[in-house]
C-alpha cells in the first residue's frame, strides 16, 4: 500500500496530521479514564488491601468520630470497612441470569428472522427487535417498576418457588425487586445486541452448503443444526460476551428494579441486589459525608474493578467477533 501511494503534497500532509491529532482524542479519553480512576482509587487500594475482594460490608466507619485511624499510610474513619464482594456477586449473578435467558432467546430469534420466517416479514421483525435496543435503560427501569416487579411478586416468584422450590436458591419470598427481576430486565436489554450479531453471522452461511444439505434430504431444522449453527459458533460466543459486557455495566435499569443490598450476599434468586454500577450511584451521596474522602476513593476502586471486568468481557468478544463491539453496533444501523 505504502509504496503505491503518490508523493504527498504539503496540504495533504497538514490534512493528515490534523486529522491524526483529532483521532488521538479516542485513545486520550480512554487512557484518561483509566489513569484518573486508578489514581483516585490509590488511597483506597492501599487502605482496603486484598480484603476489598473478600469483604461483603460497605461501612464508612464512625462518622461522629473526632479521630481517624491510619492503615498503610491512608487515613480512614474508625471502623471503616469497604468490601466489593456483595456488589461483585450482584453484578455477576444478575448478568449470568441475563445471559442464561438471552443466549437461547437470541439464537431462536436469529434463526427465525434469518431462516424460518417468511421473507416478507423478516425485515419488519428485525426492525422491531432492534427498536428494543434503542429504548433508554431508564425506561426499562420504569417498565420494570410498573409491570415486572408486581408480576414477579404476585405470580412469577411464588410460582417458581412452589414448583422448583426444592432446587437450592429457588425457594423464598420476594418483594418483586431483586436478582431475578434484574436478570430478566437485563436479558431484554442484551437480547437485541446478541441476536442482531448472531443473525448477521447466520446470513453469511455459505448458500451452497445450505442448499447441499437440503438437497441431501435434510429438513430445514437439520440443515440449521448441522450447517448454520456450527458455522456461527464462535460468533455466538462473541456476541454473548458483547451482551455480557453490556449487562455487567448496566446501571439505571438494575438500580430501579434491583432492590438495593450493599451489606450481604444474595441468599436466593429473589434477593435484593446492588451491582458495582448501581452502588456507584447509590453510595456517592453518603460518601460525601466521609471527611477523610476514603469512601469516595473506595467508590473509584469499585469503578476500577467494574471497568476491568467489562474490559475483560469486551476483549473476549473481540477475539470471537472481528471488528468488536462498535462493529456490532454500527452494522445494526446499516442492516
Amino acid at each position: 500500500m505504502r509504496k503505491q501511494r503518490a508523493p504527498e503534497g504539503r496540504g495533504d500532509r497538514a490534512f493528515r496530521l490534523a486529522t491524526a491529532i483529532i483521532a488521538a482524542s479516542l485513545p486520550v479519553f480512554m487512557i484518561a479514564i483509566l489513569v484518573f480512576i486508578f489514581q483516585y482509587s490509590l488511597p483506597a487500594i492501599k487502605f482496603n488491601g486484598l480484603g476489598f475482594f473478600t469483604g461483603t460490608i460497605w461501612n464508612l466507619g464512625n462518622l461522629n468520630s473526632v479521630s481517624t485511624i491510619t492503615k498503610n499510610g491512608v487515613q480512614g474513619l474508625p471502623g471503616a470497612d469497604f468490601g466489593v464482594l456483595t456488589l461483585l456477586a450482584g453484578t455477576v449473578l444478575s448478568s449470568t441470569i441475563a445471559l442464561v435467558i438471552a443466549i437461547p432467546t437470541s439464537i431462536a430469534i436469529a434463526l427465525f428472522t434469518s431462516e424460518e420466517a417468511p421473507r416478507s416479514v423478516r425485515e419488519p421483525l428485525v426492525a422491531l427487535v432492534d427498536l428494543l435496543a434503542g429504548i433508554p435503560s431508564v425506561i426499562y427501569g420504569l417498565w420494570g417498576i410498573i409491570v415486572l416487579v408486581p408480576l414477579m411478586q404476585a405470580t412469577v416468584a411464588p410460582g417458581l418457588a412452589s414448583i422448583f422450590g426444592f432446587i437450592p436458591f429457588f425457594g423464598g419470598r420476594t418483594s418483586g425487586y431483586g436478582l431475578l427481576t434484574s436478570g430478566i430486565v437485563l436479558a431484554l436489554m442484551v437480547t437485541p445486541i446478541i441476536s442482531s450479531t448472531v443473525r448477521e453471522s447466520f446470513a453469511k452461511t455459505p448458500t451452497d452448503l445450505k442448499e447441499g444439505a437440503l438437497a441431501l434430504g435434510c429438513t430445514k431444522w437439520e440443515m440449521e443444526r448441522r450447517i448454520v449453527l456450527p458455522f456461527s459458533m464462535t460468533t455466538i460466543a462473541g456476541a454473548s460476551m458483547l451482551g455480557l459486557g453490556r449487562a455487567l455495566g448496566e446501571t439505571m435499569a438494575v438500580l430501579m428494579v434491583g432492590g438495593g443490598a450493599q451489606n450481604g450476599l444474595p441468599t436466593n434468586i429473589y434477593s435484593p441486589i446492588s451491582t458495582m454500577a448501581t452502588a456507584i450511584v447509590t453510595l456517592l451521596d453518603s460518601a460525601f459525608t466521609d471527611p477523610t474522602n476514603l469512601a469516595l476513593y473506595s467508590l473509584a476502586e469499585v469503578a476500577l474493578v467494574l471497568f476491568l471486568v467489562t474490559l475483560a468481557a469486551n476483549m473476549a468478544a473481540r477475539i470471537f467477533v472481528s471488528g468488536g463491539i462498535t462493529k456490532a453496533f454500527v452494522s445494526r444501523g446499516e442492516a
Partner: protein
Amino acid sequence: MKTEEGVFARKTWDKSVRALTLVVTVMILIPLFDIIYIVVVNSLPGINLDMFTHLTVTDGILNGIVGSLFLVALSSVIAVFLGLFSGVYLSEFGGRYASVVRFFADVLTGVPSIVVGYFGYIVFVLYLGWGFSALAAAIALTIIMLPYITRTTEFALRKVPAEIKEGSYALGASKATTVSKISLRYAAPGIITGILIGVSISLGETAPLIYTAYFYNYLPNLALIHSPVGYLTWIIWAFINEPLVLAHQQAFVSSLVLMIFVLCLGLGARFLVARWWKS
C-alpha cells in the same frame, strides 16, 4: 430414520423448531409493545399545557426537556467535530496508528456509562473545580457518542467508490479537497445516521449525568460551568419513586417525550440508510 415414522419424527421436529422460534420472537416483542403501551397510557392524564410549560418545581417538565436538548446539543457539537475528523483519518489513512485508534474506539464503547460519569465527576467536577455543570456532563456524553460517530463515519467513507475519488484526484484535487467536496457528500447519509444514533444514545443516558450535571429544578442558565442542569432521564428515575400522583405523571410524560425523540431519531436513521442503499 429410513422408516415412515422416522420421516414423521423428523418433520415434527422441524415444525416444532419453527413454532418455537416463532413463539420466542413474539415473546420478545411483547415487552416492546407493553413498554410503549404503559408509557402512553400512563402519561395521557398528565398531558396538558402546564406539563410542557412549567418547571419541575411546580407541575411541569419544561426544564427537563430544555436541559436534555441543551446537554445533547452541547455534546453533539464536540462529538461530531472530533468524530468526523477521526473517522476521516481512519478511512483515508491506514497504518498501525489507525488500528490503535480503532482498538481504543472499541474499548471506549464498552466502558460502562457510570464509569464515564464517575470519571467526569473526579476530573471535571472535583479536580478542575467546575462543580456540577453542563460542560462536565457534555464531555461525559461526548465520550459515549464519540466512538459510534467515528466508526460510522469511517464505514460510510469506506463505501465511497474508488472511481469517484480517483476522478477527483485525476482533476488535480488534493486529498483534503476530495474528502471534503466529494467523499463526505457521497457518504453524508451514512455519517448522519451514525450521528443520529449517537444523539439518540446520549439523549437516553442517565448514569453519566447524575454526578456531572446533577439536577436542577429550573431552566438551565446556559452557563457552561458552576451550574447544574435538569434533564428528562433524571425526572423519570427520581420522580417515579416519589409517592405523589403528579410526580408519577411528570415521570411518565418525560418518558413519552424521550421515547418520541428516540423513536424519531431511530426512524430517521433507518430512513436515511434505506435511501442510501438504494442510491
